[in-house]
């Protein structure tokens, strides 16, 4: 079981929001559910992007990131890096 230290906030980018009836939050939950083991979903999901595009941010382990990156419905998975004011 991964500890909180093993986890890093990562962005799972899913592209555009699908047309028609779609529930982004439940889709994000279901994707996350497929890769996490033994942790509560609510504690891992940091943000859901659902107004203008599709994706979410979650606390993930390296292994979970790799699994997500291989999913057909995922465009990219990358760590939530620190940006600087310029």
């Amino acid at each position, binding site marked *: 079981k991964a500890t909180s230290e093993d986890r890093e*906030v990562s*962005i799972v*980018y*899913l*592209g*555009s*929001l*699908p*047309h028609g009836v779609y529930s982004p939050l439940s889709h994000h939950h279901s994707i996350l559910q497929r890769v996490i083991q033994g942790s509560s979903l609510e504690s891992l999901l*940091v*943000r859901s*992007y*659902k*107004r*203008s*595009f599709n*994706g979410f*941010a979650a606390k993930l382990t390296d292994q979970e990131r790799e699994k997500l990156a291989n999913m*057909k*419905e*995922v*465009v*990219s998975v*990358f*760590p*939530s*890096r*620190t*940006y*600087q*004011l*310029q």
Partner: protein
Amino acid sequence: TTRSWDFMGFDEKINRNATVESDIIIGVIDSGIWPESESFTDVGFGPAPKRWKGACKGGKNFTCNNKLIGARYYTAESARDGTGHGTHTASTAAGNGVKDASFYGLAQGTARGGVPSARIAAYKVCAPTCMAHNILAAFDDAINDGVDIITISIGLGFMADVYGDAISIGAFHAMENGILTTNSAGNNGPSDGTVSSPAPWILTVAASSIDRRIIDKVVFGIGTTVVGNSVNSFTLNGTSFPLVHGKDVSSNCTEEDAGYCKEGCLDSQLVKGKIVLCDRYTSAIPEAYKAGALGSVVLNFYNDDDLSLILPLAATALHPKEYSVMMSYMNSTRDPQGTILKSEYIKDPAAPHVAFFSSRGPNLILPEIIKPDISAPGVQILAAYSPDASISEFEDKRHVKYKIMSGTSMACPHAAGVAAYVKSFHPDWSPAAIKSSLMTTAWPMNDTSTKSNISTGEFAYGSGHINPVKAINPGLVYEASKEDYIRLLCMKYDEGKVRLVSGDNSTCPTDKGSPLDHNYPSMAAKVAPMNPFAVKFHRRVKNVGLANSSYKATIFQDSKVEIKVVPEILSFKSLNEEKAFDVTVAGSGVPFGSQVSTQLVWFDGSHSVRSPIVVYTA
């Protein structure tokens, strides 16, 4: 902004479409905003535009008004700006005109945004660090809220792939919703390949100087005067004080460390009431301040005039030549005396030049897309500030409402302001058309004031210096639709992923084409060093000038390359008509690590539509 807009000929009397301008909403993704600033009062503003779907969720004690119509925060406890950065950028893009603004009397004038009648929505993502997941959340909201232009003066310190960069992703979805994003190029110059904003749908902005340069003087001995760089608001009344070198006022450091005025090296008893000279910039000022020195003169090793910090004591930074003159004086007299004068401004006839610190291309992710795209004022800009924030990084106790700052952060909102100004005349123009109008009307820049041995040319300043007056009437624009960008993505990425990004069933064409043919307002090709080459750019332009017009191509030839444009004349019969053309560039022998630059200008007798062409080697 008390000088930057006037410097570009964009004065207070410029022709404006005030009614449309007041319908434009600028989304500022930054460190929040100071809502009580005079730059954001709503006197004379009506209610928010009807299409505005945003909200004022700025947190405790945060109130919006008819100027500042929206606020959200994703970090800290409110959208209130604790650092001053977001207040500065927001007021540069769209702040009200505020008379007699100054920083302790320096840079005095009317501080104003590019579009003073426009509305502002603030999205706070930095406090002070900015996390990618918060930046994406801000884009998600800003796009849906209905902003027209997004300005984001934030960046990674390096260039990330477009699918791995929150700003590239957010700006792509902004673009598909008709919103242009302006982004700062970064402050990691002057090394090559340091620009951190690769996406073609973003307007990436380099920082340039304006003709008002703030300097300060050090007077020593029998009236010897040298000029330094800092924003020094302190006055020593012209009185001379003892000068000491760091190495002579330390009791517990090596001579070298003491000379650098490293942390903990200066002896408070020995520096009190004196001006201390230090052989280094970074650590020296806080140490001199902490030790209680009266003032400090430090070495600006990089010869960088654009590094002009606000310091917590009377202090300045000298170029090595001037610093050594002062050191010679110190070594030649038993009781060296001197003083530092309050900053003053001088006119710089060489302006604009690209700031030393401004990040440079080439684009490491999409080598055929020149980045940065354009230059805008980003050196010594006075704009609104948070009175709660410290005015320098050195635990300065002073607080101000307007402050002078430098960075590509300051350039970016200038470009956003101009983009909004163009949109106020052409509300139906696409983000690409607005971007094209800014790029093709830019003033040509040259390398004369840049220093040797640093990256110059288009990879420093892009298409040139932003020119707001001309930008509203570009004559021709290089259009690019979402489909054009998708086609470009198809050349680099897996089709399934591109389909997810596009959100429709658009498939990548079997013949994927070349990124050289992406309809960009500038042209670049990376070729093998010293080998013969022949590259062809396919472009199309849309007539937005006069219905019946004819444009002739002019090429500014470089002896190292041969360029052909086919056809050489484009004749239009109506507005919005599109015409295609090809540019072929052939040559050989471009040495490793160098570039050949030239430009194509379409001219119809009144509109000059200029595109740089760069052939470079890795």
